[in-house]
């Protein structure tokens, strides 16, 4: 193509040289990302090996001291465990509900516009605001959830959702699921829309019922997007501190502390930037491993 054009109109300005253009168009993004993600990332790594605190910002190399201090702290292991529990359970729920929701949203029915609008609300509301709404929803005295349960005769008094380690974790997971399910649904919808109509119809003519079509046509064909939805859900949950920060402040007694929130409490509220950075650094390798695993799964599925 390039050759043909060169023969026709001799015009090889910079705006035509693909090799140059490719770099020039990519450069702003790359420079920006290196400056504001790459450099701060290295800085965070450097902080993790230093004794920087908010009170004393001078840099002294202290080797692995922050890491040994972090490892010796039971709260770190607790929050690591909480992060894994929080992420896996929220991710599974997000994918399952996201898939169901996507199937509802692609169906034809009256009032679809309104339903979609209502369904999108949890995702489009700023996290901090929707979590505050939930804070009242799970209030120890005035909780509307408790009011309904009381009316149904299931409980007497109050559950105190955020006061007990088990129900606090359950609440954090459910709020996170509620918040991210619409996004997962939108992503899965993308896959559902792309399924050729005749495939589904062929299966229908062959007499396959709803569940067989679901299990043998829809789900296998949408597995790549489901994997992408799982990836988004996992990343956003794994790195999220807002829900547990606003809802429980990591409590009761660290039962809902996750790595991100614990790093924040240590690094900003505790003032120990070095330790905060050391804790936060743990997010990255786990994330990377998870992401690579999912990206590879997507590729393998596509190759088939």
């Amino acid at each position, binding site marked *: 193509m390039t050759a043909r*054009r060169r023969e026709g109109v001799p*015009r090889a300005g910079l705006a035509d040289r693909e090799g140059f253009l490719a770099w020039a168009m990519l450069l702003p993004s790359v420079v*920006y990302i290196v400056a504001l993600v790459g450099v701060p990332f290295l800085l965070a790594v450097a902080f993790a090996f230093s004794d920087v605190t908010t009170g004393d910002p001078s840099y002294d190399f202290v080797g692995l001291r922050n890491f040994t201090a972090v490892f010796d702290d039971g709260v770190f292991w607790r929050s690591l465990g909480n992060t894994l529990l929080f992420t896996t359970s929220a991710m599974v729920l997000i994918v399952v509900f996201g898939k169901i929701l996507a199937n509802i949203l692609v169906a034809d029915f009256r009032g679809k516009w309104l339903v979609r609008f209502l369904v999108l609300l949890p995702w489009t509301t700023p996290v901090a605001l929707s979590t505050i709404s939930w804070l009242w929803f799970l209030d120890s005295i005035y909780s509307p959830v408790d009011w309904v349960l009381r009316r149904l005769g299931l409980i007497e008094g109050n559950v105190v959702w955020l006061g007990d380690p088990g129900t606090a974790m359950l609440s954090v997971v459910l709020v996170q699921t509620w918040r991210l399910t619409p996004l997962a649904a939108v992503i899965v919808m993308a896959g559902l829309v792309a399924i050729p109509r005749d495939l589904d119809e062929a299966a229908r003519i062959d007499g396959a019922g709803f569940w067989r079509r679901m299990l043998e046509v829809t789900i296998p064909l949408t597995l790549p997007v489901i994997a992408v939805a799982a990836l988004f859900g996992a990343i956003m949950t794994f790195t999220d501190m807002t829900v547990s920060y606003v809802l429980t402040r990591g409590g009761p007694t660290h039962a809902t502390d996750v790595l991100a929130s614990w790093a924040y409490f240590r690094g900003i509220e505790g003032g120990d930037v070095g330790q905060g950075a050391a804790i936060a650094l743990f997010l990255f390798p786990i994330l990377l491993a998870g992401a690579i695993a999912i990206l590879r799964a997507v590729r393998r599925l596509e190759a088939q």
Partner: protein
Amino acid sequence: MNETEALRRRYARRHVAARVGVYGAAVLAALVCALPFLWSLVSAFKQNRDLYNPESNPFAFNEPATPDHVRFLLTDTPFLTFVGNTLLVGAAVVALTLLMSLPAAYSLARLNRPWGTPMGIAIFLVYLVPPSLLFLSLTRVVVSLGLEDTLWSMIVVYPTITVPVSVWLLIGFLKAVPKDVEEQAMVDGHSRLGAFARAVLPLVFPGIVAVVVFTFTLTASEFVYALAFVSSSPKMVVSTGVPTQLIRGDVFFWQSLQAAAVVTAMPIAFLFNLFLDRFVTGFTMGAVKT
């Protein structure tokens, strides 16, 4: 004859059952997702003695409704300033994001460099570096640039979140444009760059709109950076301003908080819903299937 009749009846029954199932599921989904907002909407207009009574129905007005708390939000708190700041930051971030991600996505999607795919994946992986890991060091960067407590701090840093996702989405939209479009434009005498600007961009306009809405949503919900960079209330955005200014110690201005949540949520969800279909197609076109 009899058999076909029975078969038809069976199909008709099955059809009715399926319709009922769809409507039931849709209503249930809408309720589960929107119930907290419905309740927020009701309680925003409640009187204190109605709200702070554990026995009163939380979904209905047990005392006459009052607009006082909504008025308080609009006139006695800087809420409208927060809204203005959010819009300003959002618009600037959207502009910066498009300026950087459109050319980058075109380069990766169309200019067939051998490093195209690994670079695309690398940019996507940047999205995995979470704010919770970077905010400690980025706060230092922001301070050394002299941007703390300004809207600029957010405008400069937020594209780190939005650019990687936008590039990823735009690659999908760009790949869906047939190659002939550029070739025709180049035959007509445009340069490669001119072909991109005049022939390709108009075709991906719907995709760009979807990216704009998505970017704005991400910007408006961001919490960690906004909390770390800005501490004076006239410069705050909705996501940090509302929690910090409407919760004073242990005193929660509950009705006003609920009103703020509803007022913020509705327009964003409305916009997102308008462009949902475009967004959905954007995900299918190449982004996933390459």
